[in-house]
């Protein structure tokens, strides 16, 4: 796909329902079995002062990666994709997170055209939970 086509291509919006089961599944992918602020209410209370565990910010990275893969295509995104997110508010069980993107810019680089997309994650209250950018290089 040419980079000029991406300027006008619709960027999909994703909706993700957050459950503690999914948060725990995400944590179980790690190679170190341990309790943390994501899977232990006690540790979340001790370290954060919250009454609930919070989802790993990396779940939002995974959501953004899915959005960008669908926009750029896996053959492009899986070999040149970048996700850069800043986490602003916690995501927790019961939240519904909407991940959306907006075309930002294109720039010629050594091996093609770098296309950059602005990314926003919002919860069901309209609060922004994460913000950042993603990109990939189109040959």
């Amino acid at each position: 796909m040419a980079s000029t086509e991406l300027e006008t291509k619709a960027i999909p919006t994703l909706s993700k329902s957050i459950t503690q089961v999914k948060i725990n599944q995400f944590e179980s992918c790690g190679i170190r079995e341990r309790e943390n602020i994501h899977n232990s209410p006690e540790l979340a209370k001790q370290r954060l002062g919250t009454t609930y565990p919070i989802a790993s910010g990396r779940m939002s990275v995974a959501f953004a990666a899915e959005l960008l893969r669908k926009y750029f295509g896996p053959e492009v995104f899986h070999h040149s994709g970048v996700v850069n997110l800043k986490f602003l508010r916690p995501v927790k069980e019961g939240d519904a997170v909407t991940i959306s993107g907006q075309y930002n810019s294109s720039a010629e680089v050594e091996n093609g055209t770098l296309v950059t997309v602005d990314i926003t994650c919002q919860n069901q209250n309209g609060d922004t939970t994460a913000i950042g950018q993603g990109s990939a290089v189109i040959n």
Partner: protein
Amino acid sequence: MTQQKLPELDYNKLEIGEELGTYEYVLTQEMIDEYRKSVDDPDGAFPTIAVKHDATALGLAYEDNTGGVNAGNEIELHNPPIAGKKIRVTGRIHDKYSRRDKPYLVIEATATDEDGRLIERMRTYQMKKPDEVGKKWHPQS
């Protein structure tokens, strides 16, 4: 085999550029399946995001009794990992700085597979005063 006691993480003693060591693991199909379920993405190709390579490197080098809150992530994707292949991860301290009187630690990990394919490079911005974040989310009156 006795497990080696890790040194306790002391933020002030960490050095930018410090190597956190190298570790290996085998990425299983079960890990890929579990990752895809957890993020509701049947085509998710980088379950390594959930393995948290950089934080794992830090955790294998230091006993971190403070913990931290993930303030941000940067990830570069190069090649999707393949089930059954050994993944080799090298971690380092990329940066540390103070912002609004809060200490931040930036850790980085680079992952390759047993065939030498570069998989991903991940950086995490950890804020090392997690109780401050909790107060912000739940301000005490």
